[in-house]
């Protein structure tokens, strides 16, 4: 079971970035099928346009999932105690996205040793899609 070593990590350390994409309609269909979120703004270009968008947008939760992959791949899944995101801007077909993060604060208390990190996903133009926070428990 993967656990990070508290002592070997410094505030300001970057989490290993993860780049994905381009986002495709097939990927959104896969995400819809897996998650059960079949909102047509993620699947049907005409519907999305009628809803006032440029076209299909990705599920926000797919972005949170990609960011989650970066986090659990780095810290180990059972070490993650809290994870939250704000959805900031839409992700469109063909976007390439990169998940990043930084260790903001180390905290040691009676419950254990924790890292407080900020995390985010940006696209190929540096536009931020989601921002979030994670609390990770260490050895």
């Amino acid at each position, binding site marked *: *079971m993967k656990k990070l070593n508290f002592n070997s990590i410094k505030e300001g350390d970057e989490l290993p970035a993860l780049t994905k994409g381009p986002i495709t309609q097939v990927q959104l269909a*896969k995400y819809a099928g897996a*998650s059960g*979120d079949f909102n047509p703004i993620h699947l049907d270009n005409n519907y999305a346009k009628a809803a006032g968008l440029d076209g299909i947008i990705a599920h926000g939760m797919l972005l949170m999932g*990609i960011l989650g992959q970066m986090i*659990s791949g780095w810290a180990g899944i*059972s070490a993650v105690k809290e994870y939250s*995101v704000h959805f900031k801007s839409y992700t469109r077909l063909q976007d390439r996205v990169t998940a990043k993060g930084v260790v903001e604060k180390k905290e040691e208390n009676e419950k254990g040793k924790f890292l407080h990190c900020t995390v985010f996903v940006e696209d190929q133009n540096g536009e931020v899609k989601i921002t979030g926070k994670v609390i990770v428990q260490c050895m």
Partner: protein
Amino acid sequence: MKKQKKIPENPVEPFYFEVERCKIKELCMAIGDNNPLFFDTGYARKEGYDDTPAPLTFATVMVFWGHPGLLEKVKEWGINTGKILHAREHYYYFKPVFPGDRIKCTMEIESFRSTSAADIIVLKFVFSRQDEIVLIAKMKLLADSR
């Protein structure tokens, strides 16, 4: 004219979700996360897990597949689900979730606020296994209130 919103106190009955291996795999495949921890029980056991754990954002699967009519319910309250924005998602993890788990999901409305432009609603989902809480999820939605 603004439609009357009727937000019930106990909006939906608790529902159950049976965690099946395929949904863990499919979610990871859709994300593009090919960590064998999510696919290979033998690997997961060597890593010290009882089985392949659910990934961090699995709550979504349990809510949408566990209660496919949820958005219809929200619509019944007078919320404009045609123009709804997912603003925030927040998870508190207590125990890993595994294939074979029967997860009880209890939903409550943590807060509801209606402004001239938007209905702001926070749904709270408590996921438990045999009365032990494994995960809490909070979802903030913004809907056009006009």
